[in-house]
Each structure stands twice: as structure tokens, then as C-alpha cells.
């Protein structure tokens, strides 16, 4: 089980979760309902799979080394979702250091 408490301690993080490659919610912390966390887990797994496909394809196309996939992030006006491996966090953009978040996610995800 991923150390979600470690992620929740990072400034600006308001939810953290772990999902399986097929989109099942394994665990979560933070101010979010279980139903919403389960939906987030499905989206994260789907996006990770697509990013893996794109990274492998682009590596073959360009000759640059974009594999293995490490993670991805998506930002809106207030919040961002950041995912590494099978763990992810929701963060407040105006409080977070993305360097710090990505470092913590890589530690927790072991990537």
C-alpha cells in the first residue's frame, strides 16, 4: 500500500489516492467522497494507459527515450492532478511546489 500520509503532508495537497492499473480505487485520503475518488481512480488509470501508449509510440517515432512512463499532470485554474505510477494527488495551484510534489510522488511510487 502506498504511503498516502506522506503525500498529504506536502504543502498544497488536499487529496491523495492509489489505484490499480485497471482503475479500481485501492485507497484514498482527503476531503473527497468515496464515489468521487473511485471515478478519479478510473480516469487516472485510463490516462496512464494512454500516456504509456503515446510515450512508447513517440519513442519509436522520434528515437528519443520517453519510456518507461513515469507520470503525468493536468492543471486547471485552481487545482491540478499529479500522478506517478499508480498514485496521485489533487493540489491547490497557488500553494504547491510542483518540484516538491513530483519528488514526493516519485518516492512514494518508487519511480
Amino acid at each position, binding site marked *: 500500500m502506498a504511503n498516502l500520509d506522506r503525500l498529504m503532508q506536502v504543502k498544497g495537497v488536499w487529496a491523495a489516492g492509489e489505484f490499480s492499473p485497471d482503475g479500481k480505487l485501492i485507497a484514498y485520503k482527503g476531503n473527497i467522497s468515496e464515489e468521487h475518488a473511485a471515478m478519479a481512480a478510473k480516469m487516472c488509470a485510463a490516462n496512464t494507459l494512454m500516456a504509456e501508449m*503515446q510515450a512508447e509510440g513517440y519513442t519509436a517515432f522520434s528515437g528519443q527515450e520517453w519510456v518507461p512512463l513515469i507520470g503525468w499532470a493536468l492543471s486547471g485554474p485552481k487545482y491540478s492532478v499529479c500522478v506517478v505510477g499508480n498514485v496521485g494527488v489533487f493540489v491547490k495551484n497557488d500553494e504547491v511546489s510542483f518540484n516538491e510534489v513530483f519528488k514526493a510522488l516519485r518516492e512514494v511510487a518508487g519511480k
Partner: protein
Amino acid sequence: MATISKLKELMSLPGAVAAGEFADDGRLIAYYGDIDEKSAEIAAMMCAANKLMGNMQAKGWSAYTGEGGFYPVLGFAVAGGKYAACIMGNVGVFVKLDQADFDKVFETLSKYI
């Protein structure tokens, strides 16, 4: 439109290897750096497609949860192997992972939204 000088500014970021601008329909508008034109063109298509899918998910998520904050998508990033792609608005930069300062990258890219 990002001018070549702006793309050069992105290229001055630590670890930057390429920078470019794409249209919403995936056309490559301009690029700079150590990348061939075909690779830049497919990168532009992937960026536009990912931006559109991100917006679809963010809008759906807002409707599903009743809470905003993720829509409209301002940018996204993908990291794998030795590199990361960071995109805001319709401008993006490829950086070497071991040299990247993501806070600085996003701060610089945010000028182009």
C-alpha cells in the same frame, strides 16, 4: 502566436531540448530545438488531442462532482524515460528530467496562456 524569440526563451530553461506551438486542431505552428520536423508535427497532434481530452475530463468531472477548479484545463505534463513534456495553452517545451525545474517551467509557460 508564440514567436521564435519566445520559443527561444523556453529553450533557455534548464534542460530544455525543444519548444513549440500548436493549433487547436493539431497543426504545428512553430518549433525550435533539437527535434526533426516530423517528430515535432506528431508532438503537436498529441498535444492538441491531450488538451481536448483533458478539457473533456475536467468538464465532466466538474459536472459529476459539482465542484470547479479543474476546468478549463490550463496545461498538462507527461514524464517518461529521460524527458518531460510540459504544455500550457498551446505552447510546450520538452525538458530533460534530470535537469528540469518544473516550477520555473510552468511559471514561464503561463505567460503564453
